[in-house]
């Protein structure tokens, strides 16, 4: 979840699509989507449908952190130790 939080925080306030988020975090779809669902249920992530960029394409879901998610991401970045990230790059 921390990788997703960090990726969304880096892009805030812009939104990011699911596939790009996969590439940015290195997570597979089988890990990313359950995380996004849980984070959305906890009010950390908001999603929005974006108009398709090319004709014939379906609208895509884009994600960004809510105020709660932003606060959590800031906290994780400032104090990685409390999130079990003492060795991680800040």
């Amino acid at each position, binding site marked *: 979840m921390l990788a997703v939080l960090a990726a969304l925080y880096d892009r805030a306030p812009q939104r990011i699509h699911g596939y790009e988020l996969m590439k940015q975090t290195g997570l*597979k*779809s089988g890990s990313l*989507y359950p995380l996004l669902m849980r984070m959305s249920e906890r009010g950390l992530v908001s999603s929005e449908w974006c108009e398709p960029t090319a004709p014939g394409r379906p609208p*895509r879901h884009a994600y960004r952190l809510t105020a709660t998610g932003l606060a959590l991401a800031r906290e994780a970045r400032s104090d990685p130790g409390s999130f079990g990230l003492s060795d991680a790059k800040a």
Partner: protein
Amino acid sequence: MSVWIARPVMKLALAGMGSDRCEWAAAMHAEFAVAQEAGDGLSFAFGCLTTAWQELPRHAEGRLALARYICALGLILPVAALLLAGLWCGYPWVEPPYAGEIASFARMPTGMVPTIYAGNAAAMTGLATLLLLRIAGLIVLAWFVVDADWDRAGAMQRAGAAATITLTLFSAVAFADLTCVVLPLLAVGAELLSIPMLQRWHEDGVVAEA
């Protein structure tokens, strides 16, 4: 090649997401098009399938679907396999030592050893065919249970019960030995207990959701 596998896998994943996760299913579907263009379609589709299966126990619709699959794969099809194994081993003729064990399990009298002679040997083909139809019926029943088609499942159960009663009557007449119908009778009992319970749970769940 992988596109031909990825698409049905993705379809399976989207079908398993359930109505309360339909927005997430649509989101996955849109990203699948992008992943396919990038050459990641297959791994993306398998990831989505994993997600769909992980999510199944988390919502009522998924739990009901899971229960239907467990009933079909864990009860009905193993019973069909057991009956098929019996048929393979020479049903309705049960070798005396096995007949004795089955009779002792079912607390039936074991005094008479069944014998085959010209008269009752002719009945074996008919009884075996009837049991084969019963096995085919169980496979169809498993499909109806998975599909939650309770009317057809009920009709199939009634036909199965009728076939088992016919087996019992004819076996009693032809072989004077009922050990060969113990397993079919147990199958009917398990079916009659489990499927109506599952149907009631399913209908209660559907009413509660509505």
